[in-house]
C-alpha cells in the first residue's frame, strides 16, 4: 500500500518539479513561491531625500506579502543604493540583472541614472517598469520596448501651463526660474514648446540655480526687476519655499505657476506662509496628502493606515511616500494580471495592458491606461489654485494622450 502511495505521489510530483524547473529556466526571478523585483534608489548622496520612495515601496510589498502575496507568490524586493551616480546605477542594475536575476526592474529613480541603464536593459530584454522620473523620453515603445515611464512627464505639465497662459493671460510677461539640470530644463522646454511662436515675445527673463546653492534670493530679485508679471517656478521644495517667501517679501505679485514637484501644502506652502501662497497655480494628478480637503477621503485614510503599520518612520507629510504607494500598487496590478505566466515577455505585455485602472490616491476621474503604443501610464493632470487653505481644482482634466 505504502509503495503505491509513494509511487502515486511521485507520479504527480515529478512532472510538476520538471515543469517548474522548466518554468524557472524561462522565467528568471520567478519560482513557485516568489517573484524577484529589482530596484535602485538614491539612499545616499545629493538626492537622498527621494530614498524614502524605495522604502515606501518595500513597505507596500511587505503588506502585500502579509496578505498572501500575488497568486500565491511573495514579492522578493531587492533594492540597492546608487547614490544618484550613473556609474553606480549601472553596476547595481547589472548586479540585479546578472547576479540576482530579477524578473523585472521597477521604479529605478532619476533621469541620469536611468539614462545610463536605458540601452543595457533593453538589450538584455528586462522589463524596466514605471521609472521614477518625469523625463519625457521613457515613452518610446518603438525603440525601447522594455522601458516604461510612470508619472505625467514634465514637458506635458509645462505645456498645460503654456496653454493656460495663451488662453487667459495674453499680455503675460513671463519670468522663469529653473533648476540647472534635466528636471528644470524639461519643464522649461515644455513651456517653450507650448507657447510656440509666442515664446520669444512673452518670456522676458530666465534664471537658473544649482541644487547646491544656499539661496535663490538673488534670482528672485532679478526676476522682479525684469518686469515679469507671470512667474514659472521650477524649483524643488526647499527653493520653492524661498521663492514664494522672497517674492512676497519684496512685494512681487505675479501670476505664480508652481511646478507639481513642489506642490505640497505641508512641506512647501505652510513654511512659506499660507497667506503668501494665495493664488498659486499648479497642476496635480495625485491627492495632495497634506491638503485638508482629503482628510476624510477613504483613499487617504487607507494610505495613512498603511504608513502607520508598515512604514512608521516615513513622514506623513512627504508626498514621495504617497507616490511610492501609487507606483507599488500599479506594479502589483501588473503582476496580478500576469496570472501564472511571469515570464519577462508577459510582464511587459501586461504592463502595456492597463485599462482604466483606478488608484485611490489619484484625483477623482483620473485613471491609469497603457497600450502597446502608449507607454505613459498616467497622463492626466488638472490645474488647481491655492485659496489660502486648500488646492481648489478648476478647469478641465487635461489628457496628454488625446492630442
Amino acid at each position, binding site marked *: 500500500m505504502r509503495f503505491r502511495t509513494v509511487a502515486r505521489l511521485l507520479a504527480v510530483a515529478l512532472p510538476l518539479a520538471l515543469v517548474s524547473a522548466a518554468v524557472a529556466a524561462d522565467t528568471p526571478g520567478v519560482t513557485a513561491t516568489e517573484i524577484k523585483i529589482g530596484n535602485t534608489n538614491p539612499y545616499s548622496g545629493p538626492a537622498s531625500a527621494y530614498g524614502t520612495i524605495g522604502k515606501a515601496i518595500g513597505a507596500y510589498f511587505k503588506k502585500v506579502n502579509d496578505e498572501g502575496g500575488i497568486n500565491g507568490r511573495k514579492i522578493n524586493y531587492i533594492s540597492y543604493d546608487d547614490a544618484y551616480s550613473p556609474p553606480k546605477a549601472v553596476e547595481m542594475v547589472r548586479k540585479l540583472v546578472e547576479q540576482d536575476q530579477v524578473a523585472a526592474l521597477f521604479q529605478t529613480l532619476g533621469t541620469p541614472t536611468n539614462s545610463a541603464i536605458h540601452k543595457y536593459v533593453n538589450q538584455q530584454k528586462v522589463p524596466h517598469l514605471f521609472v521614477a522620473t518625469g523625463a519625457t523620453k521613457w515613452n518610446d515603445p518603438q525603440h525601447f520596448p522594455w522601458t516604461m515611464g510612470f508619472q505625467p512627464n514634465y514637458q506635458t505639465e509645462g505645456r498645460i501651463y503654456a496653454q493656460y497662459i495663451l488662453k487667459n493671460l495674453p499680455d503675460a510677461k513671463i519670468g522663469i526660474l529653473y533648476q540647472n539640470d534635466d528636471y528644470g530644463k524639461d519643464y522649461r522646454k515644455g513651456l517653450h514648446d507650448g507657447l510656440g511662436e509666442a515664446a520669444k515675445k512673452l518670456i522676458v527673463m530666465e*534664471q537658473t540655480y544649482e541644487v547646491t546653492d544656499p539661496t535663490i534670493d538673488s534670482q528672485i530679485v*532679478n526676476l522682479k526687476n525684469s518686469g515679469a508679471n507671470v512667474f514659472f517656478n521650477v524649483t524643488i521644495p*526647499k527653493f520653492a519655499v524661498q521663492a514664494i517667501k522672497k517674492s512676497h517679501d519684496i512685494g512681487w505679485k505675479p501670476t505664480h505657476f508652481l511646478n507639481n514637484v513642489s506642490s505640497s501644502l505641508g512641506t512647501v506652502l505652510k513654511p512659506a506662509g499660507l497667506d503668501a501662497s494665495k493664488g498659486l497655480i499648479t497642476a496635480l494628478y495625485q491627492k495632495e496628502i497634506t491638503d485638508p480637503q482629503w482628510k476624510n477621503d477613504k483613499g487617504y485614510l487607507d494610505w495613512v493606515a498603511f504608513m502607520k503599520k508598515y512604514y512608521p518612520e516615513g513622514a506623513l507629510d512627504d508626498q514621495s511616500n504617497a507616490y511610492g504607494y501609487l507606483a507599488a500598487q500599479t506594479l502589483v496590478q501588473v503582476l496580478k494580471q500576469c496570472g501564472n505566466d511571469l515570464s519577462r515577455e508577459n510582464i511587459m505585455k501586461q504592463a502595456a495592458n492597463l485599462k482604466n485602472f483606478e488608484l485611490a490616491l489619484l484625483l477623482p476621474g483620473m485613471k491609469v491606461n497603457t497600450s502597446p503604443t502608449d507607454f505613459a501610464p498616467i497622463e492626466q493632470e488638472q490645474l488647481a489654485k491655492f485659496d489660502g487653505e486648500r488646492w481648489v481644482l478648476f478647469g478641465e482634466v487635461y489628457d496628454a494622450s488625446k492630442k
Partner: protein
Amino acid sequence: MDIFLQQVVSGLATGGIYASLALALVMIYQATDVVNFAQGEMAMFSTYLAWSMLNAGLPYWVAFTATLAIAFVGGLLIERIVIRPVENAPVLAVVIVCIGLLVILNSVAGWIYSYIQKPFPSPFPGTPIRFGNVVFGAHDLGAIGITLVVLLFLYVFFRYTTLGLAMRAAAQNPVSSRLCGVRVGWMLAIGWGLAALVGAVAGMMVAPIVFLDPNMMAGILIYAFASATLGGFTSPGGAVVGGLLVGVIENLVGTYVRFIGTELKLTVALAIIIIVLVVKPSGLFGRVVVRRV
C-alpha cells in the same frame, strides 16, 4: 540703483552664512593646523541635536545654549578620541580620518533623522524690514549680528585670556609651549571644541534659510572655503569679511555679467579662490607666514 542695493543686501545675507562657517574653518586651522573636512557635517549634526531639543518642547535659547555646550564637548572628545591616534601620522592620514568622520556623521544623521528636509525655526521675527525700496529679512541681519558677536568673543578670548594665550602658543610652537608647561594635547582638543561650537552657531543660523537636511552644509562648504581663502586663513576677522564679500560678488556677477549669469556661480567661487591664491595667497587680511628652512 535699487536693484543694485537689493542685490548687495541679499549678497550680504547669503554672505553671512558663508562667513559663519568660514569662521569655524579658520578657527580650527588656527588652533590645530588641520583643515577639517568634517566641519560642515559636525555643524549639521549639532543643528539636528538642537532640532531634537526644540521638538521636545525646549524654548529656543535654552536649546541654543545647550547645543553649543554639547558641540563644544563633542568637538573636544572627537579630537581626543578620533584624531589623537593619527596626530603623528602623515598629514594625508589625518585628512582621510576627517573624511571618514564626514561620511559617518552624514550617514548617521540621515539614518536617525531621515533625509527629508525639515524646517528650523529662527529666533528672529519673520517680517521683512523695509528700507525704502530695499528689503531684507530680520533673520539675515540677526545671523550676521550673531556671527559678529561670536567673532568678538573669539577675539577677546584669544587676546586677553590666559587660556587663549596658551592655545595660540600651542599652535605656533608646540615644543616650546610644552617646555613652558602648556598641555599641548588639551589645547588642541579645546581648539576643536571651540571650532565645533562656532560651527554649531553657523548651522543654527543657516538652517532656517536652507532647511535642515543631512546635505545642508555640503553646498555651503565651497563658498566657506572661498571666503576663508579671500579673507585669509590666518585671520578670523578676514574670514567674516571674506564671507560677506563672496556673497556680494556672487550676486553682482550673477546679475550684471550676462554670459555668466546664474549658471556659473560655482565657477565664480572657483575663480575667486584661484585669483586670490595666485595674486595674494595669504588673503586680504592674512599674515604672510615665513618659515625657517
